[in-house]
């Protein structure tokens, strides 16, 4: 039975689905990373994803336009990011607690809207696989890397783009400075509040896309609480990846591969209790986080309120 796992088709299947499953984590984690690099810890990612997930699904269901659905999810994410930014930057609310508040809001709101507006399980036709010309035809490699839906490609493209923005642009410089020493940034005329609003709203937009990637690209349905903790995992991945885009990529891949593995274990009927299999990725996260967290040093001003005196 275990030997079933070692056949070529299964291995290709595991890696390919692992890559697909990385999508929501990449969007949500990279978005969260920008917020954290500027000093804001947003624990509301899960809520933003849930609401984004529902809105993308609903708009797609009603208009049959996937891109419109995606855009709506981005809009909802942006609004939740805006609210988070207002509460933490202007009202100086504790970041961790307000994040949990936004998570609960997103979960409740998406449930409510689903029940009022949809009610029953319905499916949509989501983003379809695009086989990249030529590359998609390569045996094995093509199937693993170049036969995915548009959001998967976008998610992987986001990693180098995020790295570039963070390290090579004036905006990235400001974000890094604000997260490390907001007083210094402020004394040079950088708007600490402005940068934090921007990154938190951007994080919301990406969380919205992450949610949409579940409901209109990976699963093509909406269910209550369908993210099942992925938003929290995304926050953990930021720590795991030491606040660096490529570190996050590594973490997201590792996590998703193990997740894909356990899914295949269930599919193949290998006699491991399903509950135990489902726990695997989470146990792995805990282990790796415990081992890696000591060396990683987060932004100095993370979770700290900035207030100019006088």
């Amino acid at each position, binding site marked *: 039975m275990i030997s079933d796992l070692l056949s070529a088709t299964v291995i290709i299947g595991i890696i390919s689905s692992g890559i697909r499953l990385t999508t929501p984590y990449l969007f949500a984690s990279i978005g969260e990373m920008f917020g954290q690099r500027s000093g804001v810890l947003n624990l509301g990612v899960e809520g933003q994803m849930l609401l984004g997930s529902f809105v993308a699904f609903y708009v797609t269901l009603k208009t049959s336009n996937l891109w419109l659905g995606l855009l709506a999810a981005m809009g909802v994410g942006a609004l939740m990011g805006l609210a988070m930014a207002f509460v933490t930057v202007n009202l100086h609310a504790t970041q961790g607690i307000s994040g949990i508040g936004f998570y609960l809001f997103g979960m409740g709101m998406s449930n409510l809207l689903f029940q009022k507006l949809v009610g029953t399980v319905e499916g949509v036709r989501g983003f379809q696989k695009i086989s990249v010309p030529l590359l998609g035809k390569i045996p094995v490699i093509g199937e693993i890397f170049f036969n995915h839906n548009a959001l998967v490609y976008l998610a992987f493209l986001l990693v180098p783009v995020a790295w570039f923005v963070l390290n090579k*642009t*004036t*905006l990235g410089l*400001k974000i*890094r400075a604000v997260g490390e020493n907001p*007083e210094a*940034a402020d004394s*040079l005329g*950088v708007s600490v509040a402005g940068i934090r609003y921007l990154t938190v709203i951007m994080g919301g937009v990406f969380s919205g896309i992450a949610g949409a990637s579940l409901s209109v690209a990976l699963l093509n349905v909406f269910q209550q609480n369908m993210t099942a903790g992925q938003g929290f995992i995304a926050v953990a991945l930021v720590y795991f990846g030491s606040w660096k885009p490529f570190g996050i990529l590594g973490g997201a891949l590792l996590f998703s591969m193990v997740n894909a593995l356990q899914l295949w274990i269930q599919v193949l009927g290998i006699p491991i209790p399903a509950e135990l299999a489902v726990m695997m990725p989470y146990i792995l996260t805990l282990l790796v986080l415990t081992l890696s967290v000591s060396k990683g040093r987060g932004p100095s001003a993370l979770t700290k309120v900035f207030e100019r005196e*006088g």
Partner: protein
Amino acid sequence: MQKNSPVINEKVAFETLEMRGITKRFPGVLANDNVNFDLRAGEVHALLGENGAGKSTLMKILYGMYHPDAGEILINGKTVRINSPTSAIQQGIGMIHQHFMLVPTLTVAENVALGLPSSRKPLTDLDRVSERIISLADKYHLSIDPSAYIWQLSVGQQQRVEIIKALYRGAAILLLDEPTAVLTPQEVNELFAIMRQMQSDGYGLVFISHKLHEVISISERVTVLRDGRNVGTRLTCDVTQNTLAKWMVGREIEFIKSTDKPQVGEVRLALEDVSCRSDRGVEGLRGVNLTVHSGEIVGLAGVSGNGQLELAEALTGLRPITKGRILIEGEDVTGKKPAEITEKGLSYIPEERMKDGMIRDFSISENLVLREHHKMPFSKHGFLQMSYINDHADRLIEQYRVKTPSRKTLAKSLSGGNIQKVLLARELSREPRAIVAAQPTRGLDIGASEYVHEQLLMERKKGTAILLISEDLDEILALADRIAVIYEGKIMDILPRETATKEDIGLLMAGVHPGETIRNEKCD
């Protein structure tokens, strides 16, 4: 500004600056009360005053960080509105803050470029910024590597980055907020050389300090602030150290010095070949040998971060040592718990008095019994005896002249000087055999420092062994009978006070033995 040319601001044209009738109120405090202040191109104008006299407030108003409640600012005779650091920078004002405004995880060039428009928008133009930094650094002999990370630089070098940051932005007026507080004597001399050259290039410099000799040696004019008011502005040549001190404090000040011979007795504290790790896991102390006798003050001089904290914590049992022995009155206390070491009669005045010495949200009376609360008469069968605790607090508040509304006042609402008095009261009233006092007057004004010094000298007279850890050389020279200099976790040398000079100590603090020839590339 032309496209594609690096964004560099030329030095802003500057003749005169005037602040008229500046008033700034904080809740409960009048920080600046109708203050007048002026500055001309090509001069160093010192701003002198005790802590809380309003010097920093006045300069933060000039730099747009605070908004005055009344008053106006004129540059070159024209009224200007400065409502943010950005507008101050546009007016040609640069500020070197007491706590550097640098991002440690970024490079020098990134710190300089931060907040400036880039010539390659939206990308950064760090190569061009680096070129310009090098040319500015050459002009003022600042020798700075633009690609170095801030955390790799010494405090003195970080200060130069701050100066370059201001010059890069075209500053013609430089506000230096206690720039010498963190420097070695040699670095102070280098800073003064830089300041003199900038002065001859037509910059206007404001030098904030509470060190009289520095003010007298560098400035053309001096303004003294006391309780938020301008006590007077004079040509520096026209005033003496004593006049300035009197203006600052509002009364005659004696410069305390221990002149009497110490009545040295037996060894009370001894470190034998002690090594330990610092918080970063590297070697914090490397084979330290040091003794302190009864009735003697040993001063430990050094630039901060060279092992002083580790030494204090090793002695008090707060930090495990990796090698060597620690003896208190001949008894080996190596590896003993802090509480056991306390029992041997060692008192500790920690450097971070609010963090390590007190509990912010406890009242004065509670803080006063932190060490002895579990003992008679403060507690009986596990119950606190509030009447004893309260009497004890009232007695100490009076004896140590703590200014507070009541013993119930929380520690966090006391001023720095009064916090230190509470700490001294707690640590000295238990009749210690030995004291470790780390930076006991840092951040205190002249009056409070004077008080702390008196107390330490009284303990010395009683025969207590005192280890005085300080970055303030004047303090060490005034109080210590012997002076040990620490550098990179090693005791460089121990000098008797009679023969110690500031220059020698300064060299030792920088890791150089006096007499060794050091060459300076600039002089080649």
